């Protein structure tokens, strides 16, 4: 059994002015090295969950352990944030300085890392996201996708074990979106970083190891993408869409074609349709 890097036991969070808890008594685990997608409509509690993982918010009830740490004191919070980085939605609002490489260095500077070490870790992080040639550039000259890559590099330089992407592709154009997702996948596969990918895009979730669907602060569905998306009606009822091929497969099945469950990509659909001939 792989060890659990995130363990949530009956975790709840209630905003002070909120009537209902934003996250309501949820229990789940994340394996080390897993790529977990979290889906849910607006207001379902996904972003609150992300902030809980990063100790930006502390649970009002329940126990949350991230990389063996439970955030209780302020110092614990910084330890949690060190091992669990976060990339936010708006690329403009998470870049702090006027030079790309200095922004990458921001987190390490906060941790009090020696200057020479910062220098080479920033270099490595920027080359990891393919932004080396923009090291001296001003963030305001970059596209949304490039800014988001800088934000990823800034988190990466801190060498986190987990990176939470909180709808990090929502404001990007299709190319930028594909780029950031590919980077997240590569970091997950090659560097073994656990990824929690919060998104609206089903196509992205379909490529995750596991999917959690949230609704009204609770976990509504959980399982592999195939298990989750094959429950087309449930997923639609939760205000989400299913990947196009799954929808097509579902309709073909309802029309009487004996397609097997879990057709998600165009390739799988082609194989499946050819098998019918």
């Amino acid at each position: 059994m792989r060890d659990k890097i995130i363990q949530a036991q009956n975790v709840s969070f209630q905003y002070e002015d909120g009537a209902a808890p934003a996250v309501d008594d949820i229990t789940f685990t994340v394996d080390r090295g897993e790529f977990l997608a979290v889906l849910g409509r607006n207001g379902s509690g996904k972003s609150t969950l992300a902030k809980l993982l990063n100790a930006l918010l502390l649970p009002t009830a329940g126990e949350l352990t991230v990389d063996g740490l439970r955030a209780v004191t302020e110092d614990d919070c910084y330890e949690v944030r060190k091992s669990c980085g976060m990339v936010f939605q708006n690329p403009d609002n998470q870049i702090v300085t006027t030079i790309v490489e200095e922004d990458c260095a921001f987190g390490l500077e906060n941790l009090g890392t020696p200057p020479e070490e910062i220098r080479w870790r920033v270099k490595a992080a920027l080359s990891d996201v393919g932004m080396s040639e923009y090291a001296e550039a001003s963030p305001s000259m970059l596209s949304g996708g490039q800014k988001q890559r800088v934000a990823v590099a800034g988190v990466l330089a801190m060498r986190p074990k987990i990176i939470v992407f909180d709808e990090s592709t929502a404001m990007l154009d299709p190319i930028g979106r594909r780029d950031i997702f590919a980077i997240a996948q590569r970091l997950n596969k090659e560097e073994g970083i656990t990824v929690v990918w919060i998104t609206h895009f089903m196509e992205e979730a379909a490529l995750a190891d596991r999917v959690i669907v949230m609704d009204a602060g609770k976990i509504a569905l959980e399982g592999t993408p195939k298990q989750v998306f094959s429950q087309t009606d449930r997923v639609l009822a939760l205000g989400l869409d299913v990947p196009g091929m799954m929808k097509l497969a579902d309709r073909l099945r309802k029309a009487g074609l004996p397609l097997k469950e879990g057709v998600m990509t165009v390739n799988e659909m082609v194989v499946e349709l050819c098998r019918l001939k």
Partner: protein
Amino acid sequence: MLKNITLGQYFPGNSLIHRLDPRTKLLATIALIAIVFVAQGFSGFLLLAGFVVACAASTGIHLKFLVRGLKPLMFIILFTFILNLFFQTGGTVLISIWIIRITSNGLRMAGFMAARLILLVLSSQLLTLTTSPIALTDGLETLFRPLQVIGFPAHEIAMMMSIALRFIPTLMDEADKIMKAQKARGADFETGGLIARAKAMVPLLVPLFVGAFRRAEELALAMDARCYRGGKGRTRMKQLKFQGIDGLAALVIAALLAAVILLNRLNLF
């Protein structure tokens, strides 16, 4: 329209003065301003003017830029000139009409003040034209760091300045977008008197401010997420380092001071 606004008017380059440590430039500028007040004769001012112009020439910045910076201050310079001209007494009387008396001493002092102000503006302009705003901020932070002992928030001020610099282009873009959105709905920013135009800006400023607050909140969260907890225990990737040219600059400034004192003693003119 909003794109034309530049802040600090940094003029990128790779001259000797550009490459000086920002701290050196800050201190040298302060020293230069002090020297301007040490000078007690036109020979001294001439020397200083020559020095500033030579510095400007070495940076490749057109004199036109420097002179342009004087324009907004022309009124103040003229005002002090006239004030000194009329109210300084002593020396031989040059002109005397009604109650107005212009004396040789007055003329001299008026000339001094104008020369001082012009030199002051030119030398501080040289600083902002050759130092990027971010380098300037870094320099200020390091220079003021000793004052942190008595509770001066050097790091916080520097951080605020750099965040402000970072968000100026972002907010400009946003203002531009809001303006276009409102123009598309029939808003008129360009006609009418001053008051009408100022009023037209209100619907632009309200969403801009709301947006800025939202951004500030998100940025604070993002900074928190990257373990920001103030200046304590913080290191910097880019360390400011004094180099040979910084020592050279100090020598040049010292020599300049000596020369000005010497000229004062000689009492040439």
